[in-house]
C-alpha cells in the first residue's frame, strides 16, 4: 500500500492538519458511480434498451436456448469417450517449475517430506476433493531446471518427473488418498476442531491398484526392493548417475514414508488431536486398536 516515502510524508502532513473525526472523512471522489436512467432527447428515448421484443423487455434467455430450435447441446450426439466422465478421477496438475518456485520462495519446507497437505498449505495450489479431484499430478514442465533434493509424495507423476527428482538425489512416491482423507488434508485444523478421531486412509479403487502397486511409477504399495531396481534402471535410461541414498546426510528424511493407512506424517489413525489443550488422545480399547491397525 504505497511507498514508504509517501506514507511518511502523508503522516507528517496529517500532523499539521485538523483532527480526523466522524465529521470530516469522505470516500475517494468518483469511487461510487450511481446508475442513472438516461433522460432527454438522446438518452431518454428507449433508455439504451433497443426497440421491441426480447431486448427491450430485457428478457435474457437461458444459456444455450435458441428460441425454439433444437439447441446445439442437444443436437450433437453423445460421444462414447465421455462415458462415465462424471466418475473419472481428476488430478489437477502442478509443474516442476511451480514446485521449484515454491521451494525458492520458502513456501514449502524441503527439510521435511512434502505431501499434498504442505502443497496446499503453501497457498498456491488448490484442490477441491468434492469435484473429484484426487490429488496432485506433478508434470514435467521445468524438469531441466529442477534442482531441489526433496522427498515428495504426489498422486500422479510421469517417468520424466520421477527421473528429474531422482537425478537430484530426491525421492518421489505416488500415493492414493480417498476424497475424505483429502478433505482432512486440505484443512487439518477444521477437522481437528470437530474432535473426531483421524480415520484410516482407504485403499485404492480396483482400477488404480495397478498404478499404485507398480515400482515403475513409484507406487506406495510397491515392493521397496523393486523400487530401488527401477531407480537404477531409470538412471541408466536417462543417463545420469544415481546419487547414493545410504550415504546421504538427510537419509532419515529421505526415507520417511507414510503407512498406507496413515493420513498425516507422525499421526496414527484413531488418534484425536485436541488443539485447545494441545494434547493427543490415543485409543486404548482393544477393539479400537484392532480396528485402526487393519
Amino acid at each position, binding site marked *: *500500500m*504505497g511507498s*514508504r*516515502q*509517501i*506514507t*511518511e*510524508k*502523508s*503522516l*507528517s*502532513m*496529517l*500532523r*499539521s*492538519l485538523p*483532527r*480526523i*473525526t*466522524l465529521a470530516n*472523512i*469522505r*470516500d*475517494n471522489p468518483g*469511487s461510487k458511480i450511481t446508475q442513472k436512467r438516461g433522460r432527454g432527447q438522446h438518452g431518454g428515448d428507449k433508455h439504451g434498451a433497443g426497440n421491441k421484443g426480447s431486448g427491450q423487455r430485457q428478457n435474457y434467455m437461458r444459456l444455450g436456448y435458441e428460441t425454439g430450435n433444437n439447441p446445439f447441446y442437444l443436437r450433437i450426439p453423445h460421444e462414447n469417450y465421455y462415458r462415465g466422465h462424471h466418475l473419472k478421477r481428476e488430478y489437477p496438475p502442478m509443474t516442476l517449475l511451480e514446485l521449484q518456485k515454491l521451494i525458492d520462495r520458502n513456501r514449502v519446507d524441503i527439510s521435511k517430506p512434502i505431501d499434498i497437505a504442505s502443497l496446499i*498449505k503453501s*497457498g498456491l495450489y488448490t484442490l477441491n476433493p468434492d469435484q473429484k479431484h484426487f490429488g496432485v499430478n506433478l508434470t514435467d514442465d521445468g524438469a531441466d531446471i529442477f534442482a531441489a533434493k526433496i522427498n515428495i509424495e504426489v498422486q500422479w507423476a510421469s517417468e520424466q518427473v520421477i527421473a528429474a527428482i531422482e537425478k537430484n538425489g530426491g525421492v518421489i512416491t505416488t500415493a492414493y488418498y480417498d476424497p475424505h482423507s483429502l478433505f482432512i488434508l486440505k*484443512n487439518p485444523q477444521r477437522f481437528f476442531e470437530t474432535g473426531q478421531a483421524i480415520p484410516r486412509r482407504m485403499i485404492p479403487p480396483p482400477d488404480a491398484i495397478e498404478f499404485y502397486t507398480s515400482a515403475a511409477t513409484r507406487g506406495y504399495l510397491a515392493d521397496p526392493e523393486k523400487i530401488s531396481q527401477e531407480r537404477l534402471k531409470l538412471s541408466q535410461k536417462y543417463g545420469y548417475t544415481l546419487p547414493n541414498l545410504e550415504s546421504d546426510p538427510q537419509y532419515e528424511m529421505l526415507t520417511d514414508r507414510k503407512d498406507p493407512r496413515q493420513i498425516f506424517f507422525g499421526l496414527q489413525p484413531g488418534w484425536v488431536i485436541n488443539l485447545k489443550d494441545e494434547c493427543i488422545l490415543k485409543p486404548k480399547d482393544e477393539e479400537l486398536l484392532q480396528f485402526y491397525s487393519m
Partner: protein
Amino acid sequence: MASILINAIKRLHVSPQIRLCSLNSAAVTTTTANKTINILKKEWEFPPLYTKPREVWIENLDSVEEKKLGLIELHPMVYAAPPRIDIIHSNVIWQRKYRWVSWAHTKTRAEVRGGGKKPWPQKGLGRARHGSIRSPLFRGGGVAHGPRSGKSHFFMLPFHLRLHGLTTTLSAKLAQDDLHIVKDLELPTDESQYLVDLIENRNWGPSVLIIDDTDYAPRNITAATDNLLHVNIMPVYGLNVYSMLKHDTLVLTQAAAEKIEEKLLYHLHSDNRERMKKFKIDQV
C-alpha cells in the same frame, strides 16, 4: 485552506527511513544529561524491514502532571500505516449500516382500509377511469414503492478493509498526537474531577477513549469515569474505527498497545483465505 496546506508542506522534512533493525535487544537504558530513559525494544516475528519502529512515550496516570516513564517501540505496519481516509470512511459507513434496521413503513393500496368498490362506472360520466379510491393516485390512498419495515442494511466489509481500517485509524491518531500510551490504569483516587483535571492538564481532547487489555478495569478508574459520559473504557477486543474517531484522544495501556499490535500483525502476515470468503448470514 491553501495557507494551511502550504504551512504543512513547509514543515515536512522526510528523513531517510531506511535502516537495519537490531532484533536482539530488549530494554535499553540510555543515560542523557543526568536522566535515565528506559527504551523498550521488541523482537517481532515480522520485523519492519525498511522503516524505523515508532517510538512513543509511556506516560503515567497516577498524577495530574505528566511524567514520562519510558519509551516503547511500536511496529510501523500497525502504527505508521498509510493514512487512507477512504478506508476509514468505508469502515465508518459499515459500522453505521450493519446494525441498522429501518422500521419506516407505509401501507400499500391493498392494506389501506376500504377501496373495494369501483368508485364510479367505467364509461359515460366524462370522468377519468378508476377502480379503487385507495389507488396511489388518490388522496388517502396507498403508497406505491414506499418503505416497508424491517429492512436490514446488513453487509460485511471485506476482511482486509476491516484490518486496514484499524491500522489506518491507529496510525492517523498517532500521527496527529491523539494517541497516548500509559503504563496502567491505576488512579490514586476515584474522583471524576481528578480525571477531568488530568485531561485538561495534558491537553487531551475533552473526549477520551481508554483501551485496556482486560475486561476488568481497576475500581478507581471505573468509578471516576462513571459520571463522565465523554470518557469511556473499552477492552482490546472492542476496539473499532468508529469509537476511535468519535473520541478526540485514544489512550492505550502498554499491554493493550502490544496486544493490538500482536493481533493485527498476525492477521497481516497469515493466510486469511478462509476469512476473505464471501460472508453468508446463514453460514454454519
